[in-house]
């Protein structure tokens, strides 16, 4: 049925295109015969007519403008301010991605140390869509809880065995991805709270080391900071780094959730003398991170490489990956058993991506989500009998204590978060991490944008966030009637049948 109020765009735009010419002539006449002031309009319409002629008859790349002229430009203008309008005015508090305003506000609240209560019910769609924790009829007293302590490297009786004292660690974000102020604020906050921080794959962690917090050194596929000229492991450099007091563990990144199976490219324009020095690369040429470590071409060589890094560093050493095929992981675990080399921890990264810049096709379409991958990894390690020889770290949107405890129930020992800490630093989810234009000075190297990020203030927020999360952990654990996160199992999680995961959940019987 044709609506009575249907607008004939073609007719309207024809009127509009003729209209500005008429207006130009009218204004010109008025300027000439009435008052010269009318020529302000003459000039404006003259320029608009010129522009319109260009749009209609010269340019060929915009069909709408060629067909309809200046009226169509209004559409582009309105569309261009759409994201801001939606974020500020029209998006509801629970619908934004990756983090809704409700979730962000919760992190801000923790970081600022504000009141923790809300009233009149949950703002989330509570029923049948999300994982939930199960509480117990018999909560335990909070002072009966064991202090959080996960020992990494204990199964190999290492002198360097490292004890993780907080259930949440700062996940891998390199200097390069983050500006120096952001790195230092995170590191100082971690130091204040006694938490552990991952350096990311940015090479020698100069700014991380400045604040003296405990660090996990991450080695990406390009091995920045510990590479030879041809991208292999420089054992001397790794040994020298591992000897530093602040570096407690080494994480070999096999893949990451943002772009599993793909290497990054560091364009030569972004390689400053400082970056070249920290990462150990030469200036003036692009540096390609390979999709995998050159040493690791199959299960056998991968396990051998893990063993090599464990031997050279002398530190607890683990691997990080985003799970793709469980059968490949099982084969890798069997190879570990055959060679007698077991990593001290495994980091399971969710496939939906994080701070790392990645092609949209990789962010959106590849890699298992965390809550699918985590139980699979846990189960395979149990089946193969080496679960007790290593710890599992989980990462992927774990920005609240509830989500972290769900991950722990499904097999994780410790949770990692990166974006949670960015929010604690003041991230407003402008989604410009890859453009060097971060308006709050976190993922940018522009001094005038970093100016607003005060290290001391933000470090305190980071520490507050860690401590508030730990506080929530204690309260939730007590409510679940469990004296330690170690005792949690998947029976502590309720997974609705229409929920986000496919694995069968055992109902507690």
């Amino acid at each position, binding site marked *: 049925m044709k609506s009575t109020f249907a607008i004939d765009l073609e007719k309207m735009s024809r009127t509009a295109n003729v209209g500005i010419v008429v207006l130009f002539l009218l204004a010109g006449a008025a300027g000439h015969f009435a008052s*010269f*002031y009318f*020529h302000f309009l003459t*000039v404006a319409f003259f320029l608009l007519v010129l522009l319109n002629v260009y749009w209609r008859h010269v340019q060929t*790349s915009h069909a709408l*403008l060629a067909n309809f002229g200046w009226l169509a*430009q209004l559409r*582009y203008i309105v569309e*261009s301010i759409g994201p801001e309008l939606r974020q500020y005015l029209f998006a509801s508090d629970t619908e934004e991605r990756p983090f809704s305003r409700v979730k962000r506000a919760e992190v801000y609240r923790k970081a600022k140390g504000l009141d923790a209560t809300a009233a009149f019910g949950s703002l989330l769609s509570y029923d049948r869509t999300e994982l939930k924790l199960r509480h117990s009829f018999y909560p335990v007293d909070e002072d009966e809880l064991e202090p959080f302590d996960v020992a990494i490297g204990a199964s190999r009786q290492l002198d360097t065995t490292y004890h993780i004292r907080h259930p949440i660690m700062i996940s891998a974000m390199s200097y390069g991805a983050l500006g120096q102020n952001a790195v230092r604020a995170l590191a100082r906050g971690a130091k204040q709270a006694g938490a552990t921080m991952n350096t990311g794959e940015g090479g020698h962690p100069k700014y991380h080391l400045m604040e003296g917090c405990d660090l996990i050194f991450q080695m990406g596929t390009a091995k920045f900071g510990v590479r030879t000229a041809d991208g292999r492991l420089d054992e001397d450099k790794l040994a020298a780094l591992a000897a530093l007091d602040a570096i407690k563990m080494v994480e070999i990144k096999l893949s990451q959730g943002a772009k599993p199976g793909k290497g990054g490219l560091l364009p030569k324009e972004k390689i400053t003398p400082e970056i070249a020095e920290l990462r150990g690369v030469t200036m003036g040429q692009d540096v390609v991170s390979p999709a995998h470590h050159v040493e690791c071409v199959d299960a056998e060589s991968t396990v051998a490489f893990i063993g090599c890094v464990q031997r050279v560093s002398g530190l607890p050493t683990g691997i990080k990956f985003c799970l793709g095929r469980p059968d490949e992981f099982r084969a890798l675990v069997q190879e570990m058993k055959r060679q007698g080399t077991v990593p001290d921890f495994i980091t399971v990264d969710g496939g939906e991506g994080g701070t790392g810049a990645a092609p949209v096709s990789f962010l959106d379409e590849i890699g298992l989500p965390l809550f699918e991958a985590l139980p699979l990894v846990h189960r395979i390690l149990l089946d193969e009998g080496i679960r007790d020889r290593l710890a599992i770290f989980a990462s992927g949107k774990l920005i609240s204590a509830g989500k972290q405890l769900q991950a722990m129930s499904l097999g994780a020992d410790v949770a990692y978060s990166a974006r949670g800490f960015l929010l604690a630093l003041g991230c407003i989810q402008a989604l410009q991490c890859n453009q060097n234009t971060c308006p709050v000075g976190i993922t940018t190297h522009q001094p005038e944008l970093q100016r607003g990020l005060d290290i001391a203030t933000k470090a305190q927020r980071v520490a507050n966030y860690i401590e508030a999360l730990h506080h929530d952990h204690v309260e939730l654990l007590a409510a679940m009637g469990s004296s330690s996160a170690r005792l949690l199992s998947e029976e502590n999680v309720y997974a609705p049948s229409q929920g986000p995961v496919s694995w069968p959940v055992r109902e507690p019987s």
Partner: protein
Amino acid sequence: MTHPKLTYLAQGVAALLLLTAATMKFVGDPGSVDLFERLGMEPVGRYGIAITELVAALLLLSPFAALGSVIAVAVMCGAIIAHVTQLGLVVNDDGGRLVAMLVVVLVCSVYVLISRRKQIPFVGDTL
């Protein structure tokens, strides 16, 4: 098509001439006053145009040079209309020097406009 160094040169020349013109209007140079009286725009129009020229000149020297060039082109178009329709090409016996200066500013700002067209707010993406 355009050369970055030439663009900066054009910005500088246009801004300098615009600043000169704006100053003459601000201080009430008798020649300017006479012209604006003949247009029936004295003194509001004189100060208004002077402010517009000043803004255009400052923008031309800033990262927003594209916007500055649009304003400069507009002001120069207006001035050409004035000279062609009412004032004449030779004013105050200057042998056409004022109009020549005006054309120089126009050419320079059109050059800036073309080379920086992508940076024009809102419409730049389509040019």
